[in-house]
């Protein structure tokens, strides 16, 4: 019922895929469904309107109805349009030529500023900088402590002066402090505020006027609705926001807000937050986001991640095994272990074309995602004989009982594991061959 935008698009394209030629009515229906899908993804009403109008013109221009493979052309056009709206190239953060570089994070309450501040600091440390986090949320109970605890966990320094100093004074003191400690990257965590709260918006303006800020980043929740454009607009008007960080993209939201913000404000989206861990943080890639929205899967990201986890030889070997239907429990376990390094199974499924709509059928999310699940699988597989691992079909009832005793697990665990194994095997048989998204 609450199909994501990706699923929507896939349904739309499936409908038109089987048609050789499209008539005017088909195009109208297709555009209508794209419109509904975009609205359900929380793309702003006005942005959708412009988007559909422009799409309509393009479709007319390209004479879709006379073309031989209309569905592919429409996909291409829609993808192109979304990419165009999102902005064509990746926008990195600018570094001040005269250190320190000072970055301020702003946004509504609960969008993830504090978490993002720490992620950003961690990102810069990896790039060889010496970051300092500055706690200026003097309003929310325990906000300063939150930053301190997070900083401590990641071994990042946090500057704070308690709740009785003004935000701008805290920042000034932090700059002085940083020059002694050689911190070249200062990240200011501010209090969450409503855009219509004049007093707090003035506070931001005061910092903006008195501190040489290199970047002013607006933190936006990827699940935000239609009003996101309005609040973001006020932040942009008041302090000239230089970039956007989209948070909580690890859920099932399609993040239509990304499309709206870029279109309405012209401010680039620079990073995305994709999880609760400090390194669940990536630069934003417009073309990847567009293809993810379209259900083409985030192939580029996956390839990058697969490349770091697998050697080319390994990948070819695996692909051959799949092809020859020799994929056995040994491989299964090895793959689970590798996948764990790439990301959760769920995350991977999201990135592979054709797999994201399998999610409903298989409970893959449970696979290897839970702590300890992998250990259990390891125990079960190592309690099997070599023969059983290579040819799981021989595992009958009495063998299952033996394996269960040997591994100290329940019979149901073994049944589930075997079921999952066959599902994965089946998926690879039907799904795209690994070669299709290996190195090109």
């Amino acid at each position: 019922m609450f199909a994501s935008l990706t699923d929507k698009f896939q349904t739309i394209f499936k409908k038109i895929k089987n048609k050789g030629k499209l008539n005017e009515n088909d195009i109208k229906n297709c555009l209508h469904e794209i419109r509904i899908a975009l609205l359900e993804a929380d793309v702003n009403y006005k942005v959708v309107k412009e988007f559909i109008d422009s799409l309509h013109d393009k479709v007319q221009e390209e004479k879709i109805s006379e073309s031989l493979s209309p569905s592919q052309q429409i996909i291409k056009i829609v993808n192109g349009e979304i990419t165009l709206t999102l902005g064509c190239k990746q926008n990195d953060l600018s570094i001040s030529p005269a250190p320190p570089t000072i970055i301020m994070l702003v946004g509504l309450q609960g969008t993830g500023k504090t978490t993002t501040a720490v992620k950003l600091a961690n990102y810069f440390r990896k790039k060889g900088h010496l970051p300092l986090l500055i706690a200026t949320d003097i309003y929310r109970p325990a906000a300063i402590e939150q930053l301190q605890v997070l900083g401590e966990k990641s071994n990042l320094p946090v500057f704070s002066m308690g709740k009785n100093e003004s935000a701008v004074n805290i920042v000034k003191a932090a700059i002085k402090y940083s020059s002694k400690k050689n911190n070249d990257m200062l990240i200011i965590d501010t209090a969450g505020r409503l855009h219509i709260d004049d007093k707090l918006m003035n506070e931001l303006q005061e910092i903006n006027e008195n501190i040489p800020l290199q970047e002013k980043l607006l933190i936006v929740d990827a699940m935000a609705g239609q009003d996101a454009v309005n609040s973001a607009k006020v932040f942009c008007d008041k302090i000239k926001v230089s970039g956007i960080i989209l948070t909580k993209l690890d859920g099932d939201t399609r993040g239509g807000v990304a499309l709206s913000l870029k279109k309405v404000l012209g401010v680039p989206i620079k990073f995305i937050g994709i999880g609760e861990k400090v390194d669940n943080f990536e630069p934003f890639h417009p073309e990847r986001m567009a293809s993810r929205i379209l259900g083409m899967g985030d192939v580029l990201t996956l390839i990058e991640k697969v490349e770091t986890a697998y050697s080319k030889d390994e990948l070819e070997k695996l692909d051959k095994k799949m092809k020859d239907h020799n994929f056995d429990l040994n491989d299964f376990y090895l793959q689970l272990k590798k996948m764990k390094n790439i990301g959760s199974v769920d995350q991977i499924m999201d990135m592979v074309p054709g797999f994201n709509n399998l999610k409903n059928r298989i409970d893959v999310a449970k696979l290897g995602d839970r702590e300890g699940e992998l250990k259990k699988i390891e125990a079960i597989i190592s309690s099997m004989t070599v023969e059983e691992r290579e040819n799981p079909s021989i595992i009958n009832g009495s063998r299952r009982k033996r394996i269960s005793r040997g591994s100290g697990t329940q019979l149901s665990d073994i049944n589930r594991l075997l079921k999952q194994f066959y599902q994965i095997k089946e998926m690879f048989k039907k799904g795209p061959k690994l070669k299709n998204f290996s190195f090109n």
Partner: protein
Amino acid sequence: MNIKNIFSQFKEGLYKTRKEFANKLGFLFSNSKDKSDFLEKLEELLILSDLGTSATAEIMNEFQQINFREYKENNFIFFKEKLKVILIDILNSTAPDIKINENRLNIIMLVGVNGSGKTSIAGKIAYRLKNINNDIIMVPADTFRAAAVQQLKILACKVGAEMINTKEGADPASVVYDGISAARARKKNIVIIDTAGRLHTKVNLMSELEKIKRVIQKEANDCSLEILQTIDATMGQNAIAQAEFFNKSLGVTGIALTKMDGTAKGGIVIAIKKELDIPVKLISCGEKLNNLYDFKAEKFVEALLD
């Protein structure tokens, strides 16, 4: 606090939302060229309020059938009344308000995605119940987010409610177990449980919540349990998925709509009620401890349209 006072505050909090909606509504009516123009503007208005495509389509359908000219010649009030009736009809619920059962232990558990306002509303609920002479114990089951326990502690102190102690990283279900035991030992009648924010798609985190519920059912089988999901008024259609998943896992008894003091309309609760029939029970607009109100469909819609 008298009832009249509560309503005037409620309206005041919703003032910005209300003014904008009502202004647009007036404009919408007086500036429409014909029926299709009017319907398009109505659609825009509803979508921009986050009602979602499905609820919007239903409302549009109702207006398809009216004789537009007749409405126009009469006046704006007819149209407004019709819209009001439709919205109230969707939002109305037979579910009871949050009531404190005097003969039992009352447990109120707050759940929701990250940043939706669980801890703040836990403080507000405690404040309200404390003011009508309840004995409250607060349970910080968010042992994951840094300093979440401290945040709740500060709020508990302000309210003058007790909070059981725990430390970061503790098993949330065992914290809840301790909370219930403490409530019994100290003869408290209300337990308020603040849980960690989690995205509804994280299977393991959702089963953590299910475990907490199991502990409650086992340790306080006779309690009156209210599971409130916080929905941030600025959220879009994903909030429907949030409500669906949390409800599937836990059986949510009601929604607490938060952050209504901004310009977002919170129309998503209309979509949630329509799709999933989960009632809105509380509404929070403002950062003060007393900015919490019982949700009344009529008042909510009236505040939007008047």
